[in-house]
């Protein structure tokens, strides 16, 4: 599938600090990609460069094959939520959206539609400065959806949300994905994206650490086996060149072999099995493994 967003050799230097360092990745059309990295990894800077809000020191980024600033109708192509709402504190949420809709050539009716979509219609007449963090996030998402864009860029959308808000966000992201939109969702809180994303791009200190389908990152890393004749099975596995070690509780942890192969081998050597459990790595574990020691000095 063609790339909706393409980042090539993107670099951003702020004085002595290289916030983004020769970063390249692609976001597939119709897929939701988690853009992961610890705080200070360069996620927001990268997203801002993709959207033409920050000038790259080197490299370039395209959205639907063109630099963002060259898009004919950016609001109808990409919806981006970088700042929390970006609304003037003295202006109501509805008026904030109406001004943006007017700029994008969209109707007032569309404003009411997106307010309904993000469940913000009732407080929309209140000043944005009085909104809670969660309401401001919803207002930002409403602005993102105004032009009904096919590509969404959301920067840390769960920041400041309470558990109810995070649940709402997860449902929101799922519905966006179900509609076939392309999404690039940055986050350092993995629980909110783990169940939604198709692909992940992991960066650390401005550099790409890994990129690919989330299923590859969370693929089975080991198989736990329990058997009353564990030592016989251990010997058989080692004869096959499979890495295996005994755990303190008597179980065997088999690495580098699928559960099916372990089961077949046990059958061949006539060893009964009491447990055969594939151990999948959570996205969080994979993330920490990739970015171990990644926290930037504050």
């Amino acid at each position: 599938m063609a790339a909706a967003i393409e980042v090539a050799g993107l670099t951003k230097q702020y004085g002595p600090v290289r916030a983004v360092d020769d970063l390249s990745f692609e976001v597939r059309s119709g897929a939701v990609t988690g853009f992961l990295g610890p705080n200070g990894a360069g996620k927001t800077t990268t997203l801002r460069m993709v959207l033409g809000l920050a000038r790259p020191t080197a490299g370039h980024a395209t959205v639907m094959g063109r630099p963002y600033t060259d898009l004919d109708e950016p609001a109808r192509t990409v919806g981006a939520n970088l700042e929390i709402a970006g609304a003037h504190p003295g202006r109501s949420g509805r008026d904030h959206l109406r001004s943006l809709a007017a700029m994008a050539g969209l109707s007032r009716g569309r404003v009411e539609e997106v307010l309904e979509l993000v469940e913000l219609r009732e407080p929309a007449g209140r000043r944005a400065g009085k909104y809670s963090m969660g309401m401001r996030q919803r207002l930002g998402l409403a602005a993102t959806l105004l032009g009904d864009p096919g590509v969404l860029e959301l920067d840390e959308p769960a920041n400041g949300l309470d558990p109810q808000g995070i649940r709402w966000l997860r449902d929101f992201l799922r519905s966006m994905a179900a509609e076939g939109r392309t999404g690039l969702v940055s986050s350092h809180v993995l629980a909110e994206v783990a169940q939604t994303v198709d692909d992940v791009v992991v960066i650390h200190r401005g550099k790409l650490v890994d990129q690919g389908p989330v299923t590859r990152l969370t693929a089975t890393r080991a198989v736990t086996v329990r058997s009353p004749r564990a030592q016989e099975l251990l010997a058989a596995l080692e004869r096959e060149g499979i890495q295996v070690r005994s755990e303190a509780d008597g179980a065997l942890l088999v690495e580098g072999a699928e559960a099916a192969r372990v089961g077949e081998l046990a059958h061949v050597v006539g060893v009964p099995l009491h447990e055969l459990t594939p151990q999948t790595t959570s996205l969080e574990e994979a993330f920490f493994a990739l970015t171990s020691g990644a926290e930037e000095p504050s």
Partner: protein
Amino acid sequence: MSRLVRGELIKMRTTRTALGFGIASVLLVVAFVLLTTLAGDPDTLNDKRDALNVGGALSIPLLIFGIVGATGEFRHRTLAPAVLIAPDRVRLGLARLAAYVFTALAVGVIMLAAGLAIGVPILAGQPGPELGGQEYLQMIGGGLLAVGLVAALGTGIGVLVRNQVAAVVGVLVWIFIVEPLIPLASEDVARYGILNSAGSVGIGGGVADDAVPFAASLAALVGWALVFVTLGLLVDRRRDVE
């Protein structure tokens, strides 16, 4: 471009900033006209024109309005959503400029209406020559030109400087401290300062023999606005959006 201006005008009328500066400007005109017509004994054409002039010092709130509005975008970090819709920063900047000028003109109309409504009947009872229809038309046209250009200048300064406090304080220091000192160095240069030019444009042209011609004052005020608007737009298009 027109939809960007429409969006900026919605922004303008949905906060209290424009309303506050508009009310302050009109109240200032009312107070000034009452003070100068009742207590100032204007008995020459020059005095009477000065009493109804909305350019000069009375336009300063609209200069500050332009600064506060433009710097407010940076202060409240509200620029990004607009730039995402209109990535051409110069077009967006020009749309914002147009919105501020339109708003200043609307306020200027009310300032003139209030000033004339109060001042004309009082001046009619004052001794000396009376202002004619031609003079009133010059003052209305000149007054609107002055407030529009002053608001444009403020917007240009705001975009260039970004820091609200620094921009407002800097302009007030320039107008009330630096410009009054310029005559010590050169009387001719001082006549083309911001305040003097706006005042001269506001009355629709000088009347005294040694007054700066209307065209020269207008050119000076246009020059002030043009320099800061151009600098602001050129610098802003190279900046990253916070």
